[in-house]
């Protein structure tokens, strides 16, 4: 039993942190060339590095920490997850291979999206909202009433969001795809849970950044002749945030491990992590503004970027309330 990253995992995370501190806003090409993160959790026989979601989550913590606009969540998390758990051997080789090499992909599921059998295979139709990185994706995995499909023929228009660090798009489809565009074992929840884990990991990193900023400021900002961090109103707020951050981290690390270990409670663990971590991030971002006082609500200070991310992410891939409702269903049955 070791409930902490291994030395190797720690090095990966530290390397990611170091690279992002020098390249907080890297181009996708640079990311692929220098780091190749999309390949982390993809099997070696599909061209990946053959690590797992634990490693991907540790890197995502670092992405979240600096709000780097890197949509690893979209391709390596959601799209790759859908293929890993639902694709045929051929699909895995080709699509995961492409993602490993840096092809951008996204998951579209907030439809309605419909699939209808036709002579040449399937006719796909509909509009999907809030597709993460949809406007840059070379292919989509879409969730329809007839299962999951991969598709390259779609139109995407960017969606302006209160969180400018996460690009969203509206994707429209009206095309025909061959039979083998369908993922034979496609399971939306299995794809989403990979997203939840990475989203939780990003939230942990972002929440910790909020806490760290607040603590650092509380140590140097003086009022009434003392650092404000010596006042219990500030000190205790920071302590409460620390509790949230560390608890979110425990939940997220476990969820990532459970996913890799195919533990029985992996879905529950992912919902636990993402609901807790997203609410923790909101609280951390909000309280960080309060602790920063006046400069906390200026445009120049990053506080508000975390706050915008926090609120937007509560709506992405399911609100914490929706996750709790699902868990209540598990505990209490249907209403």
């Amino acid at each position, binding site marked *: 039993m070791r409930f902490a990253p291994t030395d190797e995992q720690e090095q990966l995370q530290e390397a990611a942190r170091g690279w992002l501190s020098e390249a907080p806003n890297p181009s996708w090409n640079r990311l692929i060339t220098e780091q190749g993160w999309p390949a982390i959790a993809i099997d070696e026989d599909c061209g990946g590095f053959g690590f797992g979601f634990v490693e991907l989550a540790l890197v995502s913590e670092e992405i979240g920490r600096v709000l780097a606009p890197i949509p690893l969540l979209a391709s390596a998390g959601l799209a790759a997850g859908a293929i890993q758990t639902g694709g045929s051997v051929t699909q895995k080789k080709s699509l995961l291979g492409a993602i490993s090499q840096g092809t951008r992909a996204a998951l579209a599921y907030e439809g309605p999206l419909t699939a209808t059998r036709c002579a040449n295979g399937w006719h796909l139709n509909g509009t999907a909202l809030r597709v993460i990185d949809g406007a840059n994706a070379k292919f989509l995995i879409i969730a329809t009433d007839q299962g999951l499909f991969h598709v390259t023929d779609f139109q995407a228009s960017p969606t302006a969001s*209160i969180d400018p660090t996460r690009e969203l798009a509206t994707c429209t489809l009206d095309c025909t795809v061959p039979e083998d565009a369908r993922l034979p074992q496609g399971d939306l929840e299995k794809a989403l849970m990979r997203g939840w884990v990475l989203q939780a990991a990003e939230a942990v990193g972002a929440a910790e950044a909020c806490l760290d900023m607040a603590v650092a400021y509380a140590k140097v900002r003086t009022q009434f002749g003392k650092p404000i961090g010596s006042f219990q109103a500030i000190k205790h707020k920071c302590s409460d945030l620390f509790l949230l951050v560390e608890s979110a981290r425990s939940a997220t690390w476990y969820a990532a491990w459970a996913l890799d270990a195919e533990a029985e409670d992996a879905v529950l663990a992912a919902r636990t992590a993402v609901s807790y971590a997203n609410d923790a991030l909101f609280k951390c971002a909000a309280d960080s503004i309060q602790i920063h006082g006046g400069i906390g609500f200026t445009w120049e200070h990053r506080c508000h970027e975390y706050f915008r991310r926090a609120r937007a992410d509560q709506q992405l891939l399911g609100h914490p309330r929706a996750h709790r409702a699902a868990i209540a269903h598990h505990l209490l049955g249907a209403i």
Partner: protein
Amino acid sequence: MDLHFTEADEAFRIEIRTWLEGNLVDEFAALKGRGHLGDMDGVIPGRRRWEQRMVEAGWTCVGWPRAHGGRGLSLLQEVIFNEEYARARAPGRLGHIGEGLLGPTLMAFGTPEQQARFLPRIVDGTELWCQGYSEPNAGSDLANVKCRAEPDGDDYRLTGQKVWTSLAQDSDWCFVLARTSTEAKRHHGITCFLIPMDADGINVVPIKQITGGTEFCEVFFDGALAKGEHIIGEVGGGWRVAMGTLAFERGASTLGQQLNFQTELDEIIQAAKHNGTAADPVIRQRIADVYIRLRIMRLNALRTLTGHDDGTPPRAAMITKLYWASWHRDLGELAMDVLGADCMVLPESGELSELQRLFLWTRSDTIYAGTNQIQRNIIGERALGLPR
């Protein structure tokens, strides 16, 4: 206990309501709902003209004594005025700092000459004021003012930086706290100056806020000249003046805001009905909760009008800022939760929607004019007598 308004009060309510209905038309109709917190730097030219319309009808400084050019309204009538002003969604007042802060400060601490020089121009809207109290290191801790005033003959030269100054770009004058002695203890050695904003050596830099708006500014003084005759109170007596101003700030000026808040809540209720979240039991509880707390906010405000016999408000009045700031922040969060997934999507314009702006802006409500933490200190120490 008698919460009836008198017939005279009701008649007054009709008078101001009728006037507003008749005048918030044509070019002024577009000002409705504009220029309030989070948008104080909006539609300035139109609001200047609106101020003049108010002046012509005698609706500025309504609570001031007649001797100073006001209407001499009772506190209750002032409330009625503010309520009707808010109910009509009339634009944020450009002159509110002069009318609500500097004017009362001058009446309390100024010389007859100063009163004669400045008060009439607040009443007639020809001079707008801004406030230069806060500094980067004197936010909650106002006694830590660092801005220096050095003697230059009978006058003084101001050097230093002020921050969170609303409407500095558009003001004619500023009242400024500056340190006239560095030897005195923290609270001593501070003096309150009036200085024209067009003086040499004043530089105004807008601060972009969380919402993208710029209603606050930094004001830099670099040897700007403030006349000795424009010192309020004693040299070295600025602390007392400042405390007086802060007391006015917490006073009657907020008494109409519940109506603005009601407008915001109404919009959220409409949104909930529109998108179906009005049927969600969790949301229903929260809407009822903010509604209850808004009702009580108004009752609290009305209660502060019935003070002690010596004219001081009841100690319950100290909760005002903490109460509304916390409520407004909660309202912002509720607004987003009612909107659901739509809350993160910007309107076609690419600008924040009203409710998104509410959500972001309200994070500052719990900070400016005394953070929630400072408010709790004040309540604990002054209302409850807890030790420092």
